[in-house]
């Protein structure tokens, strides 16, 4: 996917710390991520792994008690250090986001048409009539039937799947380059999930959109992603192209995650749970955050923090993985 082109969006050493009563909570501990045009990058992890926090912070949407470090470069412009007014001009226009629960993202007292027009008018002034027509086109873009009538509906009159389509339509209003989808299908039933994923794939294809999908669902990742970043306790523990991550994972956490996910296509008895539970972020171990749950952990895993290194086919942050010669891989 990358083939030497400069990435559209590039996260470099992104960190997010929260000041809480018990001290400082390191929610995101330095992540790197590249997104190219027409590419789908999945960020996968369990609750509290920092996947959503990282993406929100990259867009300047962090909580008031958060401190963001590192860079989020959009075509070379660092969004993290951008003043609020300049950031607002970028957000919603060049980078758009959709969230898990469309009901809480939509205003319940404004019609769909009004909200879509608003998204348009914020970034480019145009006659109301034109905004209305454009809003209808946007609903058609996300395959909402009877778009003209739907414009007069309020969010509660739509089903969950329809609301998420409206959110996607709104995100697409200003023809962005990057779409960040934070758990876009988690609140939806599988048959509706399939519809939404199809819309996202089509937009990526037709508009050459770069998409970051934040999800906990490995099945969704397998179906839609080109590259995958696996997060654990605020760090990326493994990343690579989707086939490498699924078929040749190096990191024990990625392997564990795959081995403990029940599969629709087999009734095998060998679900191997990962023992224990993720660490509390205020009390992170000194070494590898996964070491306390890792079957292979050695003494140095408890003291030395692993950095991402090239392994068989992916990059992973594990001290015990023998590095492969770069030449051998090519």
């Amino acid at each position, binding site marked *: 996917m990358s083939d030497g082109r400069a990435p559209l969006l590039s996260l470099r050493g992104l960190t997010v710390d929260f000041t809480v009563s018990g001290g400082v909570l390191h929610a995101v501990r330095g992540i790197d991520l590249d997104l190219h045009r027409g590419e789908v990058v999945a960020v996968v992890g369990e609750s509290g792994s920092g996947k959503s926090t990282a993406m929100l912070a990259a867009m300047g949407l962090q909580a008031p008690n958060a401190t963001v470090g590192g860079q989020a470069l959009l075509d070379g412009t660092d969004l993290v250090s951008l003043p609020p007014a300049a950031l607002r001009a970028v957000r919603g226009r060049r980078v758009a986001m959709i969230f898990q629960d469309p009901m809480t993202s939509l205003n319940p007292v404004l019609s769909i048409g009004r909200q879509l027009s608003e998204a348009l008018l914020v970034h480019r002034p145009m006659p109301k009539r034109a905004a209305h027509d454009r809003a209808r086109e946007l609903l058609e873009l996300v395959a909402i039937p009877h778009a003209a009538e739907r414009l007069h509906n309020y969010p509660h009159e739509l089903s969950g799947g329809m609301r998420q389509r409206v959110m996607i339509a709104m995100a697409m209003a200003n023809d962005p380059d990057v779409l960040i989808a934070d758990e876009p299908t988690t609140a939806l039933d599988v048959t509706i999930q399939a519809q939404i994923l199809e819309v996202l794939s089509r937009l990526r294809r037709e508009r050459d959109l770069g998409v970051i999908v934040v999800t906990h669902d490995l099945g969704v990742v397998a179906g839609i992603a080109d590259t995958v970043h696996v997060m654990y306790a605020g760090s990326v523990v493994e990343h690579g192209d989707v086939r490498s991550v*699924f*078929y040749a994972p190096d990191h024990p956490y990625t392997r564990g995650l795959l081995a403990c996910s029940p599969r629709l296509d*087999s009734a095998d008895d060998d679900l191997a749970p990962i023992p224990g539970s993720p660490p509390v972020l205020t009390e992170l171990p000194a070494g590898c955050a996964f070491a306390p749950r890792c079957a292979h952990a050695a003494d140095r895993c408890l003291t030395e923090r692993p950095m991402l290194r090239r392994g068989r086919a992916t990059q992973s942050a594990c001290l015990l993985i023998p590095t492969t010669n770069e030449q051998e891989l090519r």
Partner: protein
Amino acid sequence: MSTIDPLLVVRNLSKTFRPRGGRVRRGATVQAVSDVSFDIARGETFSIVGESGCGKSTTARCVTRIVEPTAGSIRFDGHELVGLSYHDLQPLRQRFQMVFQDPMASLNPRQRVRDIIGEPLRVRGDERDSIRDRVHEVAGQVQLRTDDLDRYPHQFSGGQRQRIGIARALALQPELLVLDEPVSALDVSIQAQIVRLLRQLRDEMGLAYLLIAHDLAVVRHLSQRVAVMYLGTIVETGSAADVYERSLHPYTQALLSAAPIADPDIERLRERIVLTGDVPSPLDPPSGCRFRTRCWKATAECTDVVPPLTDLGDGHHVACHHPEPVNVIIGRRPIAPDEHSAERTSLA
């Protein structure tokens, strides 16, 4: 549908709710569950799958009589539960217990774990010493540590809390557990721990499960038999192998084909049946077959005639005028024929 030694026999169960407020015409009712019948044998896991609003949880709640059924019969070990007074239900209720989706909402935050697990025993009137012993015993069975017993629910992670909920349900040594989405609030790595625990408990204690879940992969890993519900009715039921690999109902096929598989090559090769539109309102379900408004096979017959749930062999029932077996899951590992028959005989 008939099992040799049924522990639970549900016949023609229906539940309607009268919606309050809103723009609803007078006398309109929500048909949450319509004419549902199934059996569960001793030691068997029977699952009901379906999407939000299909009536699977209401069915489970009717079985435990948390919700009063509108019509139908529920027989537990030969005893009719429908119509029993609270007092008469009490001794039977000890024998079937429920585990809920959200352990935080179903565990009293002001009680210690010891008291939560001991509560059903106290209600039964057990002696204090025997309660203590039994609490320690079930805590061990769900792999809680003894010093966990003096802590409060908020001091535990989601997975540990679900263990507490399971321990409470096991305290009275029930024969049937009704599990309503027991792992859907948990992360995958924790979910696998609970799935494994449920399998162990079932195998060690010969428990029967009525499992309600929307996650088709989890259901496959736990169940011997499965029923698929759509808009309040069972559209297909049979052995897990039959329902997953030789599904007959178009809705089952759409549901299975939409559920993602964590395997990029398979996922990109699979043919997906993408249903158009949404589930119709249960206030006004379609005539005839309830799925016909979204079905690509629908004919005039489907509009006029309600398809009965019919046995097409080996207890594989379907409610469809145009059934056709299809394997919509391209499996990683095809299951050998002898394994099939083994599965069949173990069911019989």
